[in-house]
């Protein structure tokens, strides 16, 4: 997969550029912004819906219910009278249920994180090749033919005046790599 690489000094300009390119018809899935620090505002085109909260809650409930069911079954299977307490007592199994629910939430968050972030997926990942300290790098994966249309767009964005009438520096690579 070939990429067009544009380096921006200002992450906000990079985010604006992505939105502009998306408006101009470039496929959002072909674009990605890379930075050393999180952006203050992510471009709408790159904002992704997440099911992490849902995943965490679902995992938490599953773990809690599972743990309770397991404990109830185990305690009934080999009942031992301790202090006259009921064999399956709501209060005491409740504490372990709470802990396991929270543990399930942690597990859910991690699993969904690994899934949604694409970490550990290996495979063909684009390499931004040298991130600036404060800026951002935009990679647009496109073919040579598409690059012919995208590159002028990027150049145009890079030359667009910023608020203080200073050009937002955007270095666009000449070749695809």
């Amino acid at each position, binding site marked *: 997969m070939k990429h067009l690489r544009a380096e921006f000094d200002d992450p906000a300009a990079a985010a604006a550029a992505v939105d502009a390119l998306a408006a101009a018809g470039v496929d959002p899935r072909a674009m990605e912004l890379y*930075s050393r620090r999180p952006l203050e505002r992510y471009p709408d085109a790159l904002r*992704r819906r997440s099911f992490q909260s849902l995943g965490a809650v679902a995992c938490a409930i599953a773990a809690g219910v599972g743990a309770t069911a397991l404990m109830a079954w185990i305690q009934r299977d080999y009942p031992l009278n301790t202090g006259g307490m009921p064999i399956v*007592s709501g209060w005491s199994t409740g504490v*372990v249920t709470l802990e*396991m629910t929270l543990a399930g939430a942690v597990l859910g968050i991690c699993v969904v*994180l690994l899934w949604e972030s694409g970490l550990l997926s*290996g495979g063909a990942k684009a390499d*931004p090749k040298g991130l600036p300290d404060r800026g951002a790098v935009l990679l647009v994966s496109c073919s040579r033919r598409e690059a012919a249309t995208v590159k002028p767009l990027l150049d145009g964005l890079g030359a667009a005046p910023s608020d203080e009438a200073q050009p937002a520096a955007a270095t666009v690579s000449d070749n695809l790599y």
Partner: protein
Amino acid sequence: MTTEARLRAEADHARVRNDLLARMAGASGRYLAAVALCGAVVAWALFAWAYQIREGFGQTGLQRPVYWGVYIVSFVFWIGISHAGTLISAILRLTGAGWRKPVTRAAEAITVFCLLIGGLFPLIHISRPWLFYWMLPYPNERYLWPNFRSPLFWDLAAILTYLAGSAIFLYLPLIPDLAEIADRSSGLKRKAYRALSLGWTGSSRQWQALERSMQLMALVILAIAVSVHSVVASDFSMSVNPAWHSTIFAPYFVVGAIFSGIAALVVVMAVLRKLMRLENYLREEHFSKLGKLLVLMSLVWLYFTFSEHLTAWYGNRPLEMPALHLKERGAYGALFWAMVACNFALPFVLVGIRRLRSIPTVVASSVAVLAGMWLERFLIVVPTLQRPALPAAWGAYAPSWVEVSIGAGTFAAMALLYLLFVKAFPIIAIWEYEDEAPAS
């Protein structure tokens, strides 16, 4: 941002990054000496533990009726301190307090290490530790499972959950820094850090996922932390012993944990600041803000302590009064009032009065609070056990060299873990750090 401002910010950030990465490099003579000293104390503690296992638990100072001593005190103490990371990282993250950023990783590291050490104490304090796995629920041919109704099993569930959660809470924000270090290294080091960073590239997809995860984890870890120390408190409150069977114990312990956690964080920060020359990053304002939190928690602690003792004294129950008397006016009376002085009087004066508040006084108060909180745990565990319901069974307790060695070893182990950590990972999160004062 104007170009000049942007370029200056860029240069500042580069300087900060190089500064922080430089702290990781090299090992001075002082550092190696510290590692050697801590290692020696830890080795001695391990020897003491092995001696205890081999020669029998009688090597401790424990006796009837005081079957729990400084091991349990230390257990509660270390688990309590582990709430440092939770408070700073989770609560301040959720409230959006920016000043937490330089201290957040140090706090999270304290949490993980304290949990590792505190979680070791159940193994140390049981007399047949090679059978500890019977507390884990696993299917076996004897159809035997642990007793889910026991507060000690709740301890196991809670502490393992907290350990897993806080390890993840420490690791996730470390990932971008690990990738940064990998970028600047070569050879085996590069491969190792790259592997640890799970192939982080800094894409917006990854950043969004990470930030979302940290927000969710902060919420969950907060819930876990409250539940963990409540469960540890239930070791005492679920018993029928005088002065233990009190409904205040769960919130009391959580408050005490946050209190001692802040104190531990201040002490660790002060040590890091001096030894790693981080004066520009860990500034007066951080200590001042933590100091104010310390005073706040000191007041809450005082409120709970007063509440607890007033209720017990006023109730005048014959089974409880001997334990209370021993604690407040008997042989432990001096320790009791020393505890109040350390936990309340000293921080309130040294940190509460603005003119007296400075980095040395905040640190001094924190050291006092740590000592005071250890005393508080001691005064909860031992006097009650010395005064059981039947006076014929009243007894005494004094720790032996084995217990003291192991106790000292845990402090050395904490220092050792920290010494190793600061050389392997940047102690201040580079990607999170923001220069608040560009004119420096």
